[in-house]
């Protein structure tokens, strides 16, 4: 669900675009030059480029300069010298807390409540809004959104005797045990579900453990709950048992090795060799863009048709009454601190966040969901397939939303993912001396402490 917000190329870069903003008052229709920086490039950027042109036509006094291919880590020194963009787009929600907290993105309440404002709850679904503000202060608006659910191969499930998708994490193990097939040399030929951090970009990892098991990240005073809330241990123990039972015939080490090999041989995520498409995996968690990426049958390149369904992600048995929700969150944009024409910038922000054509073309070209309730309803009531509608129902679920983030951005995830990787690779430290459970507990405590250290470092 979370698109990598780091460009493929190392971007040791900061860029400045001189936004020669004029001193505009908030109401009048005077001239202004504003700039917007976003990550999309090439043909992917067309939907937003078109929207900006339309905005300029409707607002003749405002000239917008765009810069594509600029990830968020580029606009910082620019802000220092007051020459940053007026609006910047971040590809995910992980930096919202940080930007809100440090004032890098302006508090939008003054604009939201003005004559030219918008009523957030009427325009955007609640789940999409979650995570766009921090401690009650809205500092960003969504620009398209994503959600994720369980994509499953109907054929493989039916062949194993299952007529409906799994609903709990226990189900996942049961299903996988029956569906998984091995080669004669012991390697995995077809996997049920792969609980492996790093398998693909949307996958079993610390955020998903928190979604599926309800494990909380922070206590009310901002301390990491990694070591104190037992649901984290539950999630990781589940992962270990999964690997041992399904892929190791009860042997954890064997299962880990076999699964490691399986993951290394995964097909490229983008393309027709992706494991779900190729029938190599029966169930994966993925974002809605997968619907647009499914390949039709092609005999020449040996691609077979995929008979699949979508369901909300499975949850721990203790949470089964909540089943039906999922993570929701995508690109967001805010008005930066360095903006010299925030009023004009707000006009553009509002336009982009609510423009119907932009939502439609973004959906068509990028296979990403619109972020407005109106456009989502259009899809639900329209002729798009049931798969899209299934995922929209996840967005509509009252429990959906993004996990709670902190001011250290996604550093907490980077740290927490470490233990997930250690468990799946059977490289948890001190396992032989302390036994798995104690070693796991110790490691979680250690990582919680690390997260706290970094949070402390960041407190202004």
């Amino acid at each position, binding site marked *: 669900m979370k698109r*990598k917000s*780091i460009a*493929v*190329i*190392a*971007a*040791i870069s*900061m860029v400045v675009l001189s936004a020669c903003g004029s001193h505009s008052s908030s109401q009048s229709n005077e001239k202004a030059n504003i700039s917007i920086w976003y990550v999309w490039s090439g043909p992917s950027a067309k939907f937003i480029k078109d929207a900006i042109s339309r905005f300029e036509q409707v607002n003749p006094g405002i000239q917008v300069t765009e810069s594509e291919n600029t990830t968020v*880590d580029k606009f*910082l*020194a620019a*802000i*220092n010298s007051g020459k940053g963009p007026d609006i910047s787009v971040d590809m995910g929600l992980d930096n919202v807390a*940080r930007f809100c907290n*440090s*004032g*890098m993105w302006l508090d939008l309440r003054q604009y939201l409540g003005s004559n030219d404002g918008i009523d957030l709850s009427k325009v955007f679904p609640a789940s999409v809004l979650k995570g766009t503000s921090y401690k009650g202060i809205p500092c960003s608006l969504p620009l398209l959104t994503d959600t994720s659910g369980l994509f499953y191969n109907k054929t493989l499930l039916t062949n194993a005797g299952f007529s409906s998708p799994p609903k709990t994490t226990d189900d996942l193990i049961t299903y996988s045990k029956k569906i998984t097939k091995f080669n004669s040399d012991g390697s995995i030929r077809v996997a049920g579900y792969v609980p492996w*951090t*790093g398998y693909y970009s949307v996958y079993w*990892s610390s955020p998903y453990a928190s979604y599926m098991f309800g494990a909380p990240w922070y206590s009310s005073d901002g301390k990491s709950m990694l070591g104190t809330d037992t649901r984290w241990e539950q999630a990781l123990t589940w992962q270990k048992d999964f690997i041992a039972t399904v892929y190791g015939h009860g042997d954890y080490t064997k299962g880990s090795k076999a699964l*490691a*090999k399986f*993951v*290394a*041989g995964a097909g490229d995520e983008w393309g027709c060799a992706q494991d779900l498409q190729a029938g190599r995996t029966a169930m994966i968690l993925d974002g809605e863009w997968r619907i647009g990426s499914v390949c039709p049958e092609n005999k020449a390149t040996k691609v077979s048709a995929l008979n699949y369904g979508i369901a909300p992600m499975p949850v721990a048995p203790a949470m089964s009454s909540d089943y039906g929700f999922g993570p929701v969150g995508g690109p967001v944009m805010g008005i930066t*601190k*360095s903006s010299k024409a925030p009023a004009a910038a707000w006009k553009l922000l509002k336009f982009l966040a609510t423009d119907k054509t932009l939502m439609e073309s973004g959906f068509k070209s990028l296979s990403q969901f619109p972020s407005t309730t109106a456009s989502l309803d259009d899809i639900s009531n329209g002729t798009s397939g049931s798969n899209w509608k299934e995922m929209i129902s996840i967005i509509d679920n009252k429990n959906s939303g993004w996990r709670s983030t902190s001011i*250290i*951005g996604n*550093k907490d995830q*980077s740290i927490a*993912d*470490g233990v*997930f*990787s*250690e468990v799946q*690779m059977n*490289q948890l430290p001190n396992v032989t001396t302390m036994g798995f459970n104690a070693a796991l507990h110790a490691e979680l405590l250690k990582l919680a402490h*690390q997260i706290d*250290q*970094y949070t402390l*470092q*960041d407190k202004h």
Partner: protein
Amino acid sequence: MLERFQFSNPFWTSKKWIRLKRFLFLFLLLSPWVLGWLLLFGYPTLNSLYISFTKFDITTKPVWVGFANYKFMFTQDPLFWIAVKNTLWIVIIGVPVQIVTALLITFLVSKSGRLRHVLQTVVLIPSFVPVVAGAMVFTYILNPIYGPVNAFLRLIGFSNPPMWFYDPQSSKWGLVFFGAWGVGTSIVIYSAALMRIPRQIDWLAQIDGLTEWRKAVRITFPLISPVIFYTLVVETIQQFQIFAKSYVVTAQVPDPENSMYFLATDVYNSGFKDFHFGYAAALGWALTILTGIFVALIFSTQRMWVFSNAKQD
């Protein structure tokens, strides 16, 4: 009589004017470098030293915090020590591997007769490949399942070849081989150095009945040792700064256990992801000092193994 015209001798009896002229001439020659050093190196470096003692997120003015950054770095930052460990590993293992590979291939090239030019070009071309493309290629080549390297290893008898980038224990070895692939430029330098060794030495060695190996160790190596020393220093410095390779590789193959997390990565992340530019500057200085220690160590061994009859500096 000729001595009066030789500039290289101290010219005590000269007129002050000639001395001044010479000084001006030298200064003029050096001026681009002096300017460059001051503007592009001296000033920014001092500035960054200052920043390392501040808390600086670029949106506000730096706030002096004394040694707080350094204290956090040494006592409270777990990623720092991971980065130090990884960086030291890749320098201590990676650089010798690169140099030995370059030397071995250089010898091979020198013995390959008519194929010499071809082979030399072939090993040089990888250095022209952009890092992104190179990382994509190596991620494929070193893929444990469908990559050619492991296929080959399985062919010659290894039933369980390493998982390379997919296993934190072996991932850095993948980077080492990626680095060894780019030794073309070193090979060019070594080849040129080899070519300068007079033919007579070959003859003498043959007459003395030395085997290839002994000749290489006892004669050739010392003769090209200055060149090796040069590349050793330069490559050590560059290896300390390793960043791009691991960055691009981890964008394709995630590294949750930070096995490919280096000091330069830490500098980048602290600055551009966490916006702690003061801390990033401090990390940069830690990296510099570590590099300096190693370079000094290498220099201190110079007398022991570097054979030189050129003017010492």
